[in-house]
């Protein structure tokens, strides 16, 4: 036991010092391992790939939904022709009355007939306008329903996307944290065990320290 002679210790104390020395190295190694794992975990978390939201490219198409019946034109051209025809017909009839020496009563009847004809034309236009308004309203209702449906689809997609991102991130975090936590726990336990071994070794050695202290007190 040459090292005993170097230090000047009996075998029991020397065993304690050497045991404590080994335990110290083990504790240092465990502390380093713990620091290494902590840094490694930090780096993995900092640099990990972003979780992709597969729904993030969804866009609302509601802008593309329009009411094709909103601005339907009324067929006034035909009505104008009809009125024009009625006017020509009235003028021709008036000429015939003048030529044949017809009276004022005939002219009045003719004027009323012309009026009736124009009223008919107006009613026809009114009917077309009403039909168009109905179509526009129905079209608008359908367009609104489609816009609402599309907004709902967007909101749903957004929510599902967020849920996906959260879920994936959570899954990965938990996995990494679990793994590194297990390793860190191992390193912490190793460190604690090594420290306990160290204390045990020194305490054991101190039982024999009387030989040192004895020398000291012996000179009293």
């Amino acid at each position, binding site marked *: 036991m*040459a*090292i005993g*002679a*170097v*230090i*000047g*210790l009996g075998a029991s*104390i020397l065993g*304690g*010092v*050497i045991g*404590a*020395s*080994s335990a*110290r*190295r083990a504790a*240092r*190694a465990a*502390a*380093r391992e713990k*620091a*290494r*794992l*902590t*840094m*490694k975990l*930090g*780096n*993995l978390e900092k*640099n*990990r*790939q972003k979780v992709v939201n597969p729904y993030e490219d969804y866009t609302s198409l509601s802008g593309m939904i329009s009411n094709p019946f909103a601005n339907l034109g009324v067929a006034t051209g035909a009505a104008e022709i009809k009125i024009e025809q009625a006017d020509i017909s009235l003028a021709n009839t008036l000429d015939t009355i003048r030529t044949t020496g017809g009276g004022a009563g005939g002219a009045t009847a003719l004027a009323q007939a012309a009026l009736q004809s124009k009223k008919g034309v107006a009613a026809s236009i009114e009917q077309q306008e009403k039909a168009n308004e109905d179509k526009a309203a129905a079209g608008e209702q359908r367009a609104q329903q489609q816009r609402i449906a599309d907004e709902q689809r967007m909101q749903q997609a957004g929510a599902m996307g967020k849920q996906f991102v959260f879920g994936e991130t959570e899954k990965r975090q938990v996995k990494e944290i679990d793994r590194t936590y297990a390793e860190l726990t191992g390193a912490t336990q190793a460190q604690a065990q090594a420290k306990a071994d*160290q204390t045990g*070794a*020194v305490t054991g*050695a*101190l039982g024999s*320290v009387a030989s*040192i*202290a004895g*020398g*000291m*007190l*012996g*000179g*009293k």
Partner: protein
Amino acid sequence: MEKNLNQNLFLQQFNESDAIAYDERFVSNTSDYNFRLLDNAYRNTGRVYAKLKLAVDSNKCQDETCAYELSEIKHLQEAPQLSLDFLSSLLAELSVTDDPNFDPNNDFKYTAANSILSAKPGFSKSDGYNVYLDLLQGGAQQIVFIGPAFEEPLVINNTALNALNESNTSLVAPTPDINKDMLRLLTEVGVFSPDMVGENGQLTAGAKITEEYVIMNPDGTPDYEIIDIGNGKGRNILKYDLNKIEKKVTPFINAEVAGLMSSEQDAVAAWNVYISKGTSVEEDDQMAQNANAGNSSWSYTEDLPLMQDKKVLFEKKYKEYFMNNYLKQFTTNQFPTVQADAAVFDLAEAKRAKAQKFIDDNNL
């Protein structure tokens, strides 16, 4: 720096070789290792302790409070435990110099000090060495090494050593077990499936990189490379998408390096012993001494803390070391997993068939 390296290498070589056993002068003389550190340190403490005690008991202290005497008595009572703690702590530090992968760029004086404390041949009192433990006033202790290997006495104070230990710093930097780290890293880089990892946490004997990284033909079959195995025969080997593999493994290697950098002195040791020269594992193993870096070594006194450019260089070289020494074996000469494709075949015929396929595929 180079002088220190050479002195350390000499001491290591001296301790490892049996040369001294064949030195008749050494063999014929007494080797006295009775340094008796503690005996000498505590030789007069009994008298001092008694004087202090008497002064207190007889009211003959330096002042009426006896503060000095009481304080010194307390220090003397605590001294034995402090000495044991100091010695165990110092032995733990110095024993690093005995590690097989010890970096000789550490201060050679610690190698010499360890040689004295562990009573190695050639470091006895008869060889001119001595070591003292001094109990200092105020309770501190110091150990002093002197002898031919020291130009100046090596003095280590217990309070300084404690402070270093408390902050997880070492007198002597241990070299990380890079081989162990890289074998573990292989299982973590994500190119092997979990079932390729054995119970010991390392890759199993027949481990292969997953098919995801094998280069495939448009029809989904592996795009083999044909190798000549002699006698007109050939075999298929798998081709790997090395860029894809590199992209996959890089973040894990970077994380490993970040972990290593948690103790920069360990990174310096790894650089000096393994990483710097980009040598192969075989070359490192065959190296008689751990002087890989040689004159491009990083110094513990001048290069710590590591500057950013050195950290970047370390990361680059560490990655190269891993790719070349550990991962490459899994991307070269890998036979097909499909039994039929793994068979030996006639080389000329296979080459003809491959040429014909190329002509057919390209409508030539």
